[in-house]
């Protein structure tokens, strides 16, 4: 079956997307959970007892505290409380911690350090899967067993004020609530006032058992200005006042009631040095936890270093404090200091309950559960606990009883630690079967793409897929049988949850057949190639001789980048790789340019044949340049074109250097990565509130520049639409307070800018619509390349307009420089140096990757700009938000890819297969890193950094693959027309 190479490329990428999805489904493990959904107090185990003597204490212990207040401060970093900042700005808390009746800890949060998974961890005690990050914005009801649900079942009245994520997670659970939304990051006072205003009223009343307060202001300050901002101090002081208010009010109430109350001060996650969160650096992971209660013994002014515990330990502690069953899926250990003031019998009882719950969870998740060290220890401790009870019930009250009790306590704590850690290991269980199926599919696709390079990049741009021979071969049927047998064996034998086994068997069989067909195709292509290469054996040595330095660089760079993905540092600092490679590429272009201009003149050094050659070359160049000049005359001002004509040589010689300088400037705009992210960058300088006039000026200049650079190739209608759209963008940015109007001194009366943003959206859609209309016209009615190129350029400018609307304000510079570079490269470099489609595609891909990082992205989740999803929306709407966020994150690669499409299809002097070649190269160059990365991740699945470094990158790669598949389909659609035209 003969297929054009663009069709082959897009099919391959689509299949690879499927493979990658399957891999990811298997890779991100589901969290550990028990079969039965929610535990009830009826399942409470009785106290352990030795034979003959039964304890009469079978019910749940009564609550330790009458009232529990959870004061959760978003992004509260450990040093905001224990460090110098805390000492300075939180005087009341510091005084309590140093002298008062408190226990302080550092609670370590698990990655990803994003609010919703952390709330889940706090309330269920389990570690939510990584995939929860992706679902972070789309939070829906929490169905797992949790403290809030238990509280509601036990008839406790729970009151909540703060982040409305909680209300989405626990609808109908709270007796009273008031949610504040966390999407307007620029507001850091109103969100907190909305919480505090309820305090006076609720503290006076006595009709609640648990109060949860979630303050967002500190997190917003972090996102806006970072942890060292001057805003942090006052905010901490405000939090300190809130704490004091609660503490004093509760203390005054305690005098009436005998049961004390508990205040839990904690943070959900920390804050990195740049003020964001999501990763797993020390600053993001370590949060303070302070337990305050009059029941605790007063410390004698000795301040110890806070002990490090896990964040999941808070859930069982809260449950025990309120006298509730511990949530079933909790991995946490009760914080023993909370129960220290109770009698030994009660303390042992609590630890036994905790251990029992962990054992039950482990039994449901581990087959060899009896052999686990923690379980054995727990059994032992349970036995000695029974002995202790026996002694106790016999009325023995001597010192031996206390000592024995202490020993049992220690045994329990050790057992709990072991149980918790072996449960933690369970979380990192992978669904290897689905993973390997996905990996095999993408590996086969890669082989197919690589093997068909010689055919697909030939002048016919066609690839003959050998379909009939493999489909009727014995090998195909054998493979089908073997794979189905494997499928049956794997699915019947394994106890673990396996995604691929859970899909319907028809689909599974289909996939199996597909895999075997693919491998047969690959094998037969390979054998054909081998057979061919046996005849002209001498060709082998001269593979590299025909290659220029640029080809070598492109090859080495691509391979080098692929290899570099094996090191976690290179993934963290991937931007350095791309900056380095694009720089080298520019230098190679500069050298090629130098050679072109200087060698043509110095032809007396060369022998006559070469001289003639170069003459031919220069003739050819003149020809190209003539067409190019014609274009110039049509499109730009005559004065400019004349200037370009006269100084063509010098402009061409200096353009690679101009691009180099642009790259260097962009590099200082946004610092990304891990190691050097703390360095001051130009972007932060611009966005700080003191430099608003400068930013406004810059934004205005950028918008004008965008107009100048785009309008030349647009039709009149879209020119006007573009101008209005850009004007609308400035209005939008002024409305949300990014920039100022010249007549405005300070920003007041901010709005969400919904009208302005929608105004721009209309023009974006309008331009995209005209572009598509022109494209369709060129496809159906005329076969005019001019219309097609116009249509593509309009689609391109529509995307530029959308990006200009969604980018962070200082990133408009990136957009302008992107346009400038594309113009320079296409006008002065590619036209003059006659690069072929493959080279141009790879260069576009490299620059696209570099721009991905220039706009401030990195391979961690925390740099995704979610705010782009809310531009022009009243509230969160899932589909457009996801689309807009995806578009803005990948706008760099996407804009370069569309530019590539426009450039390849508008070049009139090129052969008709250019677009097909470009599409094929684009698919191949995207497929290589994805496949290699899938293999790398599989090999490193037990690596220390798998969750913090490798998994986010996997998500980034997969989404990039999806977008590239879309781009390839677009290429194919455009290419179809070209091929049919050439046939006509």
């Amino acid at each position: 079956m003969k297929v054009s190479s663009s069709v082959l490329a897009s099919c391959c990428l689509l299949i690879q997307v499927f493979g990658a999805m399957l891999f990811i489904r298997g890779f991100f493990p589901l969290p550990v959970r028990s079969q039965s959904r929610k535990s009830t107090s009826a399942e409470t185990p009785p106290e352990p007892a030795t034979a003959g003597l039964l304890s009469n204490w079978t019910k749940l212990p009564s609550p330790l505290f009458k009232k529990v207040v959870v004061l959760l401060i978003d992004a509260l970093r450990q040093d905001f409380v224990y460090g110098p900042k805390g000492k300075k700005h939180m005087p009341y808390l510091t005084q309590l911690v140093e002298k008062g009746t408190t226990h302080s800890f550092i609670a370590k949060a698990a990655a990803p350090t994003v609010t919703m998974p952390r709330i889940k961890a706090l309330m269920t005690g389990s570690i939510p899967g990584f995939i929860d990050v992706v679902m972070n914005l789309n939070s829906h009801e929490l169905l797992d067993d949790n403290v809030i649900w238990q509280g509601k079942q036990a008839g406790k009245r729970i009151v909540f004020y703060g982040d409305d994520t909680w209300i989405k997670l626990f609808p109908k659970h709270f007796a009273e609530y008031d949610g504040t939304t966390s999407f307007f990051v620029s507001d850091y006072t109103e969100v907190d006032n909305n919480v505090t205003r309820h305090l006076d009223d609720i503290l006076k009343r006595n009709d609640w058992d648990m109060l949860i307060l979630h303050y967002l202001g500190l997190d917003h300050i972090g996102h806006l200005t970072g942890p060292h901002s001057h805003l942090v101090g006052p905010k901490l002081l405000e939090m300190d006042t809130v704490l004091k208010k609660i503490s004093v009010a509760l203390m005054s109430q305690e005098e009436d009631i005998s049961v004390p109350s508990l205040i839990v001060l904690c943070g959900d996650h920390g804050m990195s040095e740049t003020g964001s969160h999501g990763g797993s650096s020390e600053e993001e992971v370590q949060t303070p936890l302070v337990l305050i209660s009059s029941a605790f013994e007063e410390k004698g002014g000795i301040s110890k270093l806070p002990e490090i515990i896990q964040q999941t330990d808070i859930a069982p502690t809260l449950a025990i404090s309120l006298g509730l069953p511990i949530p079933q899926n909790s991995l946490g250990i009760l914080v023993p200091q909370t129960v220290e003031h109770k009698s030994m019998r009660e303390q042992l009882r609590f630890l036994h309950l905790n251990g029992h719950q962990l054992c039950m969870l482990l039994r449901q998740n581990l087959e060899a559960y009896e052999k686990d060290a923690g379980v054995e220890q727990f059994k032992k401790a349970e036995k000695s606990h029974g002995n202790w009870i026996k002694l106790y019930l016999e009325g023995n009250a001597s010192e031996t009883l206390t000592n024995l009790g202490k020993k049992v306590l220690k045994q329990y704590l050790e057992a709990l630690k072991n149980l918790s850690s072996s449960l933690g290991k369970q979380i990192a269980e992978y669904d290897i079967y689905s993973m390997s199926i996905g990996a095999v599919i993408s590996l086969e696709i890669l082989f197919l793409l690589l093997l068909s390079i010689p055919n697909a990049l030939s002048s016919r741009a066609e690839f003959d897929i050998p379909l009939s021979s493999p489909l009727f071969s014995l090998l195909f049927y054998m493979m089908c049988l073997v794979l189905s047998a494997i499928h049956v064996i794997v699915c019947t034998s394994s106890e673990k949850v396996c995604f691929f086994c859970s899909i319907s068997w028809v689909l599974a069989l289909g996939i199996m057949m597909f895999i075997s067909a693919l491998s047969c195709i690959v094998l037969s292509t390979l054998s054909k190639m081998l057979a061919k290469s046996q005849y002209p054996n001498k060709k082998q040595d001269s593979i590299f001789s025909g290659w220029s330095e640029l080809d070598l660089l492109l090859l080495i760079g691509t391979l080098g980048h692929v290899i570099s993905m094996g090191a976690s540092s290179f993934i963290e600092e991937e931007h350095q790789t791309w900056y380095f490679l694009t720089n080298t590429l520019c230098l190679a272009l500069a050298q090629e340019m130098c050679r072109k201009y200087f060698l043509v003149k110095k032809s007396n050094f060369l022998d006559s044949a070469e001289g003639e050659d170069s003459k031919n070359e220069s003739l050819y160049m003149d020809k190209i340049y003539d067409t190019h000049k014609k274009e110039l005359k049509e499109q730009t001002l005559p004065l400019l074109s004349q200037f370009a004509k006269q100084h063509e040589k010098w402009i061409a010689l200096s353009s690679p250097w101009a691009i180099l300088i642009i790259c260097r400037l962009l590099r200082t705009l946004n610092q990304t990565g891990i190691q050097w992210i703390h360095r001051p960058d130009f972007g932060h300088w611009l966005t700080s509130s003191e430099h608003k006039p400068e930013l406004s000026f810059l934004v205005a200049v950028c918008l004008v520049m965008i107009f100048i650079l785009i309008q030349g190739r647009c039709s009149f209608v879209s020119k006007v639409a573009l101008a209005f759209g850009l004007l609308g963008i400035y209005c939008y940015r002024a409305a949300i307070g990014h920039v100022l109007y010249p007549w405005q001194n300070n920003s007041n009366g901010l709005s969400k800018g919904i009208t302005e943003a929608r105004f721009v959206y209309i023009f974006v859609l309008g331009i995209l619509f005209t572009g598509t209309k022109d494209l369709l016209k060129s496809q159906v009615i005329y076969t005019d390349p001019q219309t097609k190129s116009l249509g593509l350029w309009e689609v391109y400018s529509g995307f530029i307009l959308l990006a200009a609307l969604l980018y962070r304000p200082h990133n408009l510079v990136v957009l302008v420089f992107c346009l400038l570079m594309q113009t320079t490269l296409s006008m002065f470099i590619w036209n003059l140096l006659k690069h072929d489609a493959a080279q141009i595609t790879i260069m576009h891909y490299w620059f696209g990757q570099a721009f991905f990082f220039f706009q401030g992205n990195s391979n961690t989740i925390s740099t995704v700009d979610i705010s782009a999803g809310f531009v022009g929306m009243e509230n969160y709407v899932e589909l457009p938000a996801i689309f807009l966020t995806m578009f803005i994150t990948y706008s760099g690669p996407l804009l370069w890819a569309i530019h590539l499409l426009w450039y390849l299809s508008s070049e009139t002097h090129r052969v008709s297969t250019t677009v097909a070649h470009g599409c094929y190269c684009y698919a191949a160059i995207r497929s290589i890193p994805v496949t290699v990365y899938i293999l790398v991740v599989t090999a490193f699945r037990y690596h220390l950094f798998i969750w913090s470094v490798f998994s986010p990158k996997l998500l980034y790669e997969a989404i990039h693959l999806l977008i590239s598949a879309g781009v390839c389909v677009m290429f194919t659609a455009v290419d179809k027309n070209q091929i049919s035209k050439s046939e006509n």
Partner: protein
Amino acid sequence: MDETELRKMSTGHIFGAFAVVLSVCVPVLSVDGFSFLGTHLSWLCICSLCVILVNILLLLLLKPNASSKKTSLSNKLSKLTKSCIYFVISCFLFHGIIVLYGAPLVESVAETFLFAVLLSSFTTSRCLCLLGPNFSAWVRVFSKDGALSVWDHSLQITTVCSVVGAWLGAFPIPLDWDRPWQVWPISCSLGATLGYVAGLLIAPLWIYCNRKRLTYKSR
């Protein structure tokens, strides 16, 4: 294929490599408190000086471009000043390129500049010695099939090797190993030096191996 030229060149190269090795060994043994990593800046100075000196010595002793006609003193002087200017320009050019590659613009200027000097002493000083301050000759040598003599080939190889060495030397910088040699510009200068020495040693071997293929036209 001129065997004597090749022999002359090999000895010259061995001296050049020897100079680099000496620049590391001698100060370490003779000067207190000198180490390659600790006082990297002074090593950069010493090494570039050594390399330049050896290159000039070799120029005077071996006379690779002896075919040039006798020139007057003033001509020679102007050539010398021109060479100096070229060298300084190349230092600044390298500095600029390094900054474009991402080296800090303001901090550690001295390190960056000395590294640029080292690179130009590896590349430009040899070009100046072998080809003279003749830009068109440079362009010829550094283009495909532009080499006309053994010396041109050796020049190509050593220059490309030292630049590629410096290029590769930048790769370990982002790794989080926290080693002292990962500090800017130590890994790069190390890479450049190793590349240069390797180039010096490879060039005669390569030319010797390919002597059948290389037929030079007379000038």
